[in-house]
């Protein structure tokens, strides 16, 4: 059960960016899962090659998150921003993002290698009991960090000026623009924030499982399932959806074969898309 909670929090962390970016630009970004993998690989590189292990490991995580933010900045500044200004449709941009995903995934394969690796500093940890549950010490940190980050993102969206403008742009870009919000700047911040969160999620997922070049491919549909379940474009929806999907796929192993746990997420996604495409927390699109 606790592992379900943990996976759920991590999926939520990784999904928010996708949902935020969809919210403000309308782009379904297939490269998002590679941004998750990117964060994990950078953190691993910093740990093993640069030597930020042991007590210095949090620094590696911070740097990986910063690198993730930089990647988001680069993608928006270098690729998606200019293309959007060329009036390319979101469908074409979605295909571009698929191409980009393959590019990133196999660059990671070439330069990181095909072998799955784990973070050295956390390979073996004895369990720590807290009441009835016993977990490795790192899991408390992972759950704590993921939970705090989600809370902070929520506060950012609700209480700050930047968060308000993010919600405004995602609600109605034209109206936001005419109310004096710098739409392009907001979109840029969404990319940076979303990509940094993806990196953090990737690092945490790497901590609980392994870091490998395929992790993007493996988590892609899980993220999509989470985001559609919660409602495309809503950050809180992504959180709820991520928790539900992670929880469902982890606990499904009680009554389903292990190799089928992925099916739950996919089935949920298909049913949601068919029955209630706006998701749990989404608002029906206003027409006209």
């Amino acid at each position, binding site marked *: 059960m606790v592992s379900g909670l943990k996976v759920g929090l991590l999926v939520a962390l990784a999904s928010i960016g996708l949902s935020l970016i969809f919210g403000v630009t309308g782009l379904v970004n297939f490269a998002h899962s590679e941004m998750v993998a990117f964060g994990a690989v950078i953190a691993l590189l910093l740990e093993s090659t640069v030597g930020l292990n042991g007590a210095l490991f949090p620094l590696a995580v911070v740097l990986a998150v910063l690198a993730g933010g930089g990647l988001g900045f680069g993608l928006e500044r270098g690729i998606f921003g200019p*293309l959007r200004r060329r009036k390319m449709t979101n469908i074409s941009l979605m295909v571009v993002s698929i191409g980009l995903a393959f590019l990133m995934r*196999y660059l990671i394969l070439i330069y990181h290698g095909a072998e799955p690796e784990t973070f050295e500093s956390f390979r073996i940890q004895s369990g720590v009991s807290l009441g009835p549950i016993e977990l490795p010490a790192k899991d408390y940190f992972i759950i704590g960090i993921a939970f705090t980050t989600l809370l902070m993102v929520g506060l950012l969206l609700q209480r700050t000026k930047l968060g308000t403008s993010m919600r405004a742009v995602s609600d109605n870009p034209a109206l936001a623009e005419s109310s004096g919000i710098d739409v392009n700047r907001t979109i840029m911040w969404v990319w940076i924030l979303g990509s940094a969160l993806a990196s953090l999620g990737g690092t945490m997922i790497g901590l609980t499982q392994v870091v490998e070049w395929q992790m993007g491919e493996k988590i892609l549909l899980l993220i999509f399932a989470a985001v559609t379940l919660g409602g495309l474009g809503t950050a809180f929806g992504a959180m709820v959806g991520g928790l539900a999907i992670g929880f469902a796929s982890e606990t499904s192993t009680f009554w389903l074969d292990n*190799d089928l746990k992925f*099916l739950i997420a996919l089935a949920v996604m298909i049913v949601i898309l068919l029955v209630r495409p706006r998701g749990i927390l989404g608002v029906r699109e206003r027409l006209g």
Partner: protein
Amino acid sequence: MLMNLFAEIDVSKLFGLALRTSISVQAATFALAAVGLNLHYGYTGLLNFGVVAFMAAGAYGMAIFFTQGWLGGSILLAIASGVVFAVVIALSIGLPSLRLRADYLALTTIAIAEVLRISFRSQRLLDFTGGPFGLPSIEDRNANVSFADVITVDWNPIKEGNYGAWFLEFDEKTLWVMIIGWSLVSLASLLIWGLMRSPWGRVIKAIREDEDAARALGKNVFSYKLQSLIIGGVIASFAGIVRAFDMGFVETQQFRPQTTFFIWTVLILGGAASIWGPIIGSMTFWFVIIFSEELLRQMVDSGWIPDAILQSNDIASVRMILMGIMLATLMIWRPQGLVGKKEEAQIDIR
């Protein structure tokens, strides 16, 4: 320096291998699947990201029927059951999801393709699908027994031996499957050509251009879309079947989502909404891929590219990177591909 490089490169092998692949069964199956996708995306405007589901349905439908020996295990009936399976998949994708927005349809189709693949892989269907091992079973494969034998041995009109010369030398089995594959590509292209000149084709294209206008003219948009999905899906299922005959086995690894995007790249490279697009796209795609892979391999082997940049066992991944770059750059700078018309290739679906 440059002279030195040319001396190291085996130009004959470079062009030979690339040409060989561009007319191979592999290129034929990709062209065939792209013809099917062309009907979906190029003409009807359906964003089908689950092409591979139709290929898997065809291949597995055929393989399961044959290896189970149902109705006497006739190969023709087996092929028919593969096609029927593809129609069932088309109906089960189309009936609920064709009313969805374009990007939701894309997500649904990619998810359904994965559901199909994971189910085929599951331990519970081991007796039918062979689970992760695929079909035919390991024992049969070790004994070199396959469902492909009927086609490639019993029904092969070509005498045993090798045909052709240089790098374009094929044995009788490969040659026969190549002939079948490219004949199917021609037939399917002719079918699409005919359909697009018919009133049916005009409605289909009208739906792509403006769905609401087509509906306002009293056309049942949903039904036309469903018909398009079924016809294109059946064409793609033949691609899966021909590939199964070429490889001699089916397994779930052949039907990962990346195959779908290979076919998308083929279609966009050649030109969506054109008859020749899928064929030219597939041949060009494989020529470019194999040419650059082989060139890189020779440059790495001769030490022109240092190991730090690229090692020879990484070259297989270069194919995927090239595919990604091609897909993205074509979409940005030349959405109409090599032979498509620009005004027909603008996607503006909502």
